[in-house]
């Protein structure tokens, strides 16, 4: 949990807006440090978290969350965190064996044209609390869905339309029905607005998800070039929907990622410069 980012977003683990769809995107950069922030933030806020870790192993997230002060193994044991380890589940599908083990959430690898319905069913069963509170099961807060990352689904052959359907279904279930939050990471390539004409573009996906979301954090490299002390810039954009129509507010920050966190500062006020 990055304290400076909390103050930028006006959110603390005790009070944050519910029903938010947060999009974290990057272009020629790596925005996954923000995913670690949100993971530790929502775990500290005692929410029930469903994490789709499609690109890294569980212990990668666990090691980083340890440095941020949250233990993922404990959260998983207590039932607060439901973790889908995409890499592990995919092996049994990519290399067909006689016995199929594990959940069928990664079934889209078998035939990507089928879509992400199984993955959505996995999410739905995770975020709904099963049964009532028996045996002293702790009551967790609103559910949160974190996806790291959505663009790898495009690399694996799923069409952008299917991914947009998946995000829409998740938003309907998690944000509208259960008043929870969603955080998704979408990664783009270098050339922006490259129109390939077909539906298969990550740009198309980014535009679609941007339209659905209520808060975007867009991470980019510095427009002036590569710098070791300033790792890039983050553009935070609030897309408020309530009240008087659409009111967007944008803020730009530069950031630097440390071992135990990240610091955000106004452009030009980096400690390397001042």
């Amino acid at each position, binding site marked *: 949990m990055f304290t400076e980012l909390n103050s930028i977003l006006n959110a603390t683990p005790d009070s944050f807006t519910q029903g938010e769809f947060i999009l974290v995107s990057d272009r020629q950069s790596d925005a996954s440090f923000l995913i670690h922030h949100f993971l530790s933030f929502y775990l500290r806020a005692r929410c029930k978290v469903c994490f789709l870790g499609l690109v890294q192993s569980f212990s990668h997230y666990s*090691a980083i969350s340890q440095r941020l002060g949250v233990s993922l193994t404990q959260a998983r044991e207590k039932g607060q965190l439901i973790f889908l380890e995409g890499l592990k589940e995919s*092996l049994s599908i990519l290399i067909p064996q006689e016995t199929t083990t594990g959940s069928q959430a990664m079934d889209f690898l078998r035939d990507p044209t089928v879509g992400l319905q199984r993955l959505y069913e996995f999410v739905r069963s995770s975020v709904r609390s099963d049964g009532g509170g028996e045996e002293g099961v702790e009551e967790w807060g609103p559910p949160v869905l974190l996806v790291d990352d959505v663009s790898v689904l495009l*690399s694996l052959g799923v069409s952008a339309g299917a991914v947009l359907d998946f995000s829409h279904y998740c938003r309907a279930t998690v944000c509208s029905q259960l008043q929870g939050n969603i955080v998704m990471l979408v990664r783009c390539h270098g050339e922006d607005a490259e129109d390939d004409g077909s539906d298969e573009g990550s740009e198309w996906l980014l535009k679609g998800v941007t339209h659905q979301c209520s808060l975007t954090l867009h991470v980019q490299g510095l427009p002036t070039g590569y710098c070791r002390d300033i790792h890039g810039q983050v553009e935070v954009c609030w897309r408020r929907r309530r009240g008087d129509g659409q009111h967007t507010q944008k803020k730009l920050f530069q950031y630097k990622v440390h071992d135990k966190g990240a610091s955000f500062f106004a452009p030009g006020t980096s400690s390397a410069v001042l």
Partner: protein
Amino acid sequence: MAAPVNSVGKPSAERPPFNSTSFQKKTRSKLISIPGTRPSVQNGQLLVSTGVTSLDYLLGGGLAVGTVLLIEEDRFDSYSRMILKYFLAEGVVCRHELFVASAQDNPDDILQELPAPILDDVAIHKPVEQPRLSCEPQDNLDAMKIAWRYQNLPKVQSALASSSRFGHYYDVSKTMEPEIRQAAKCHRFYLPEHPTQSSTTHSRMIESYSALLKSLQEVIHREGFDLSTPMSMSRNILRVGLHSLGSALWNDDLSCHDDPMHSHALTTFLYGLRALLRSSLSVAVVTVPSHLIQDRALMGNITRLCDNAIALESFKGSERETNPLYKDYHGLLHVRQVPHLNCLASQLPDHKDLAFKLKRKQFSIERLHLPPDLSETVSRVSRGELAGAAAVASACGSGTSGNKHLDF
């Protein structure tokens, strides 16, 4: 994440009952000491050497176990193949096991061309090729009389190397002795030897990649590199070298068509490879002929599915070969991606303008540094002929009008 170092302490109550991935920090068990590896100083990852010490330095000390290094091949596949051979030769010297897969050359041929290690040499690495600053002879280091403002600036360090003896050096003019080579266990995958099964594939991967992934998984299970097997026997590292994936010889049309039919075959394979590597004690080097792949977005996807990525651009056959600015080097090296594993920050390279040179006893990667031109008539070649980042600012940048004087 790479295999952990066991000496990092952590309360064992949090340890899950079984270790199924390679990146968990194991606690209070005996120290893993696998020959040819060392822990990273930054985050305790287990690192292996790529065989090229300058490349180890660029990657943050070495290649983390459980990760993939993607090498975008140069135009004639000469230097990328050389790095692959260095990687395999390092595996032989460190007594790791090898897995070589190729569709073009028989893996036995690749193994016979491995460079000979320089084993009797004490590995004192002298920084070679000091920058040719002719204005700074050795006896004038103390006081600069004219350029005194530059006195406190550090001298340009062109050679990139760390001073440990983690990697070895190889003599490329000789091939490795057969006795040394045969001491290492090597698994081969030669695509023409595997008949294409006409059965329907279970995913977007084409048959050749499926067969390769299955064969690799079998080797990992059989030889005990899997991390889920109990740690009774001594552990070793499996070095996987995959040559020229994505080329037409693997039955993949990525490099042939603008709009390939199997556009997701290679990316699905790389996803499966990452899954395999993260759960075993192995490390992979994959070379891809990226100059044949027209779709830059696809190349971006491939890069993101690998952990480390470098691209080689050799000067052979291009007009830069005769450019006097590049006469010391064989090509440019671009670092496309550096991973961050088990930690938030990644080890970014200091400089982005790097050039490489294959010498007889060393593959050196240096920062491309142009010395100041102090001849009487200052002549600069046009900006368009340079690599861009290395261009010294010229007052009048047009090269077609010949020599230009810089008048102050």
